[in-house]
């Protein structure tokens, strides 16, 4: 028993030595500058340029931020306005519906295709082709097929988000370690049990990566689809503001899209980190 403790792995490695306070403060400051420095400089430059510009289409960032706050975040607690609920709500609804659809179909299809080497080899060129279509190019097709309603928008988002999920699931399932599958077979795990306990977890890093790409593609298509014949949504708001020459409002809509994108990405990364703790630990 006593000798065994010497076998201890990296889990019991030494705790890092705490550096002195001033060094830690300096470290944090350096980190801040590295992470945010360029952004801050860019905004300052933008501000100076906009101030010296005489064009009304080029408002200063402080005006944009101010308008963003009043238009979207000046309501009763929880502080969002009706404009926010109406437009962000409908946009997010479309995006999440389309994305969820893509995830369900992509994972199911990917597992099916990935379970056979032959099937995977056969459909891979087709998948690569579909993925390579510039997504806005399929918008007219969906308009013709499904009209101008929300079905069209959700389907378009789903269509475009589908390919990265599908491709990554196929690759994830194809590349599950042979030894892990053999182990499961020897220990009497049937097809369904192997899928659940071996194939899915082993493929999950790739599947989740595909889902993340799909989410950002979906966000793009959400905006694009709302530029056409929509009557709500953040994309529609940007488009309509431009029509009425409300340039600052238009810019605030763009800011909102950025915020939505960042928040979605951050939440997804948090989820990914949680689900893949083992993966991160294994590679450390």
């Amino acid at each position, binding site marked *: *028993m006593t000798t065994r403790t010497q076998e201890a*792995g990296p889990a019991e490695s030494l705790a890092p030595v705490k550096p002195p306070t001033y060094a830690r403060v300096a470290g944090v400051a350096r980190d801040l500058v590295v992470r945010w420095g360029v952004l801050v400089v860019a905004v300052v430059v933008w501000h100076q340029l906009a101030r010296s510009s005489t064009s009304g289409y080029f408002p200063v960032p402080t005006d944009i931020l101010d308008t963003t706050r009043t238009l979207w975040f000046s309501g009763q607690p929880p502080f969002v306005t009706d404009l926010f609920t109406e437009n962000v709500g409908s946009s997010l609804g479309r995006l999440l519906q389309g994305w969820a659809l893509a995830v369900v179909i992509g994972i199911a299809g990917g597992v099916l295709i990935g379970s056979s080497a032959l099937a995977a080899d056969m459909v891979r060129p087709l998948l690569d082709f579909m993925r390579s279509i510039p997504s806005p190019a399929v918008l007219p097709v969906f308009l013709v097929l499904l009209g101008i309603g929300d079905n069209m928008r959700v389907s378009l988002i789903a269509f475009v988000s589908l390919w990265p999920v599908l491709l990554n699931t196929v690759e994830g399932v194809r590349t599950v370690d042979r030894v892990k599958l053999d*182990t499961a077979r*020897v*220990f*009497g795990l049937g097809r369904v*049990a192997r899928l659940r306990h071996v194939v899915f977890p082993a493929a999950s890093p790739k599947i989740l990566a595909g889902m993340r790409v799909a989410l950002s593609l979906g966000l793009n298509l959400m905006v694009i689809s709302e530029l056409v014949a929509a009557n709500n949504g953040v994309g529609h708001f940007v488009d309509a503001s431009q029509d009425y020459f409300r340039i600052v409002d238009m810019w605030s809509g763009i800011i909102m899209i950025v915020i939505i994108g960042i928040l979605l990405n951050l939440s997804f990364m948090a989820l990914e980190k949680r689900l893949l703790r*083992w*993966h991160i630990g*294994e590679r450390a």
Partner: protein
Amino acid sequence: MRVREPKTVLEVEDLHYEYLPGKAAIDSISFKIGEGELVSIVGPSGCGKTTLMKSVAGLLRPTSGTVRMHGVAVSQVPDDLAMVFQEYERSLYPWLTVAENVKLPLRYVKVDKGQRARRVERALAEVGLSRDHAKYPWQLSGGMQQRVAIARALAYRPSLLLMDEPFASVDAQTRAELEDLVAAVQRNHGVTIMLITHDIDEAVYLGDRVIVLTGSPSRTMREIDVDLPSERDQIETKASREFVALRSEVAHLIRRATRGTTETVEPPPEGAAAPEPTAKPRQERILP
């Protein structure tokens, strides 16, 4: 040589495997393993040991010949078989904790929950990992990971345990510890084990019998009974005359196999099996 012939668990008969038509990895392998026996299988590298293992496990269908477990021909993976792979880090599931890894196969065995938990507990205690239930395999050293794999096999209570070069990827110290662990487990529980190894010392040290295979395409070359006391010790046993004689016998056979002589060697006459250490080399000197 054995007083009571034990019940046969595994019977491999004239196993032949071709990875391509006309290209044989295994020419003809035949042997039996009795209940509670530990049989080591050694041979020159690339002699199809892993192919043999996979055929026995039902992961690979032999081109001809039969594998029987408890007298029944194996056509798919037998349900009372467990295996310890050489690649422990690939064979354990990194998304499961140590205890979950051991428990996973038991989920599909008809035992109630409490008993399942007890089996996991006991198996991990057996391999000295009682305090590591909640750790992940990648937090453990290689030797400890292989202990987890051994615990997983033990908890499954197989009637045959296959070990494919189980200690080939750990350092010498750990290797000796793990060998003694397997020896102890086999003594205490009477597990039937088929151990594939390229290490001659290990084959003799752990085995009740050693089966030597020829080079590829491989055949059974010789079966050697290991008449050593069942209590064995890394230092004492390995220094004993009997051990040294057996080891050199196996080593000579393997050297001959490596030089490409593939004809089956007749077993030496009765009585020559427990020889004077000096008797063997003289016999081998006939070789070129």
